[in-house]
């Protein structure tokens, strides 16, 4: 079953056509990668899906819910979580609090005036957050302030925040950008492990190593258009893809 279906999406910034009639779909339970050279429109595409940008035309359907026109928090509430290119975490809060907030958002919805409850006595949320931190290997740091973490740890924390909500669809924007090889491999392992939970994932990535170790299907975007789509091994040898990456054609 298709969990995400994008049809005829166009997006222009002034005279620049960032996305040109993009059609795209994701099967439930799979890992799909979107690759493409710099400026291909990958991030714009992701932002259109997540409600940060409104596409000029076209539809984005999540199951039978239209995501176009929904606000970011509404898109999250229907089951779509996102990991950002630079980790977006609550830098002034502890690791445990960082996980408790998305867990609370999942349980209590977009707004709840629990002004007289005690956050430290909410065993359900605390246990969930603690387990989540154990899963990503940050349990011993649960009371440190998140802003002091290394970049790799911040990324793991952000991933744990998203996973604590049991999303149906997880969007990852360059999850290994700026990481060392060891950290990258750790992240790949982590992403593979959470694959067992049946979460559908869309990964935007530069690093081919990551793409080929994770993805079951790869979509190649260049100059706002999808130029190829298929299994990783097919994409590897596709001359159009090599051309787009090496940039020889339009010189």
């Amino acid at each position, binding site marked *: 079953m298709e969990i995400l279906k994008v049809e005829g999406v166009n997006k222009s910034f002034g005279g620049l056509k960032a996305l040109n009639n993009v059609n795209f779909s994701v099967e439930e339970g799979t890992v799909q990668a979107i690759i493409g050279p710099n400026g291909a429109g990958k991030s714009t595409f992701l932002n259109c899906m997540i409600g940060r940008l409104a596409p000029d035309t076209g539809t984005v359907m999540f199951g039978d819910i239209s995501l176009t026109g929904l606000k*970011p*928090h509404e898109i*999250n509430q229907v089951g779509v979580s996102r990991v950002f290119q630079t980790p977006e975490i*609550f830098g002034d809060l502890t690791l445990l609090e960082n996980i*408790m*907030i998305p867990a609370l958002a999942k349980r209590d919805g977009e*707004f709840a*005036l629990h002004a007289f409850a005690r*956050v430290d006595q909410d065993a359900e949320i605390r246990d969930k957050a603690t387990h989540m931190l154990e899963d990503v290997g940050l349990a011993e740091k649960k009371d440190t302030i998140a802003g002091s973490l290394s970049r790799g740890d911040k990324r793991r924390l952000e991933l744990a925040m998203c996973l604590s909500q049991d999303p149906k669809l997880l969007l990852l924007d360059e999850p290994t950008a700026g990481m060392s090889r060891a950290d990258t491999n750790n992240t790949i392992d982590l992403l593979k492990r959470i694959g067992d939970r049946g979460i559908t994932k869309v990964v935007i990535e530069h690093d081919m190593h990551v793409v080929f170790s994770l993805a079951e299907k790869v979509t190649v975007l260049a100059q706002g258009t999808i130029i190829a789509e298929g299994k990783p091994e097919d994409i590897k040898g596709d001359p159009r893809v090599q051309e787009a990456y090496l940039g020889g054609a339009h010189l």
Partner: protein
Amino acid sequence: MFGLDKKDTSLFFLVVVLVALAPFLLNPFPENSELAQFNAGYPDLMQRFLIFGIFAIGFNILFGLTGYLSFGHAAFLGVGSYAGVWMMKLLTMNVIPAIFMSVVFAGLFSLLVGYISLRRSGIYFSILTLAFAQMSFSLAYSVLTPITAGETGLQLALDDPRIIGVSAVDGSIPAANLFGLPMRESFELAMGGWLFTFNAGYYLCAVVMLAAFYVAIRIFRSPFGMMLRAVKSNQQRMNFTGVNSKPYTLAAFVISGMYAGLAGGLMVAMDPLAGAERMQWTASGEVVLMTILGGAGTLIGPVLGAGFIKYFENIFSKINDNVLYEWFSALPDGLADVLVFVIHPFIGKGWHLTLGIMFMLIVIFLPGGIMEGIERLGRLFSRKKKSETPSRAAPAPAE
């Protein structure tokens, strides 16, 4: 206890004890000594400590937790004051309805202002709240004269209806009271050279302030409070986490507006009049100073900041050149003149200058306000204690 954890319970009881014993603690100098003018233990000033403490506690719920800096909170205090006086004019001199309606009206007004101002964040939000407050001030001063009595300020009159109470007692306006206990009733206790005053109004303020403080602690420790801190930390992440940050900030805004209204209502209960100048931007700025000076985002900091500023305003401003000459009477004339000349700009009417300098020093060297200073002192002492006992292990090196 009371749904607070151990640390918060002891903090709360410390505040209860300090507030209950304030008439003693703030009067450390004998009545006839030279230093008696530094005594702050008279009802009027002690009431103001608590009332502005409440104002600052509420402001801190908005500014300290969410980081939204409102420059218009005095407007809510003003609205609360007017509502309170009207209750006393129309209904009764009992202070309970006055205080209650102050909170209600301030809450409604802050809902309106917050709903509009919170469409923007950062500096634009601050400017919007400032504009609203100045607008309210100007309206109260001119157009709304039938409600606010304009320049003269809203006062009680002999021919007010006071439906539940009485219009006049023995040909004069009845006193503000709590079920018959007049707010200005005081009991004086003379002990040796000391004179302590226990005032009914002060203790009403104390009870209200402690309740307000308790509610603030609960909010700080609640999931709601955690969400407010998340707004300050990273609003974008918050929205992408499925939380709608708007109702959270609006709720915080209205709660802090109601605290301001409560403060305004208590002012009226202590002294039944209300003037437009309570809404002026300097009054809004003052509560910002109090909160930052004490430590934004801390529980007790804003109360300390409020006390600090009010003490300066009332005590420092009373020192004049004559007082200085008395102090320096032992010195040779010329030297005393020089000293008085040097100190003169900082005292009396110049108390603002001293306060400004202290504010700058605190913000530069203790960005966390008075609370950071206390914390640093605490750490200094605990380190000394530790070094006396043989340390078990060297601190682990940071990764």
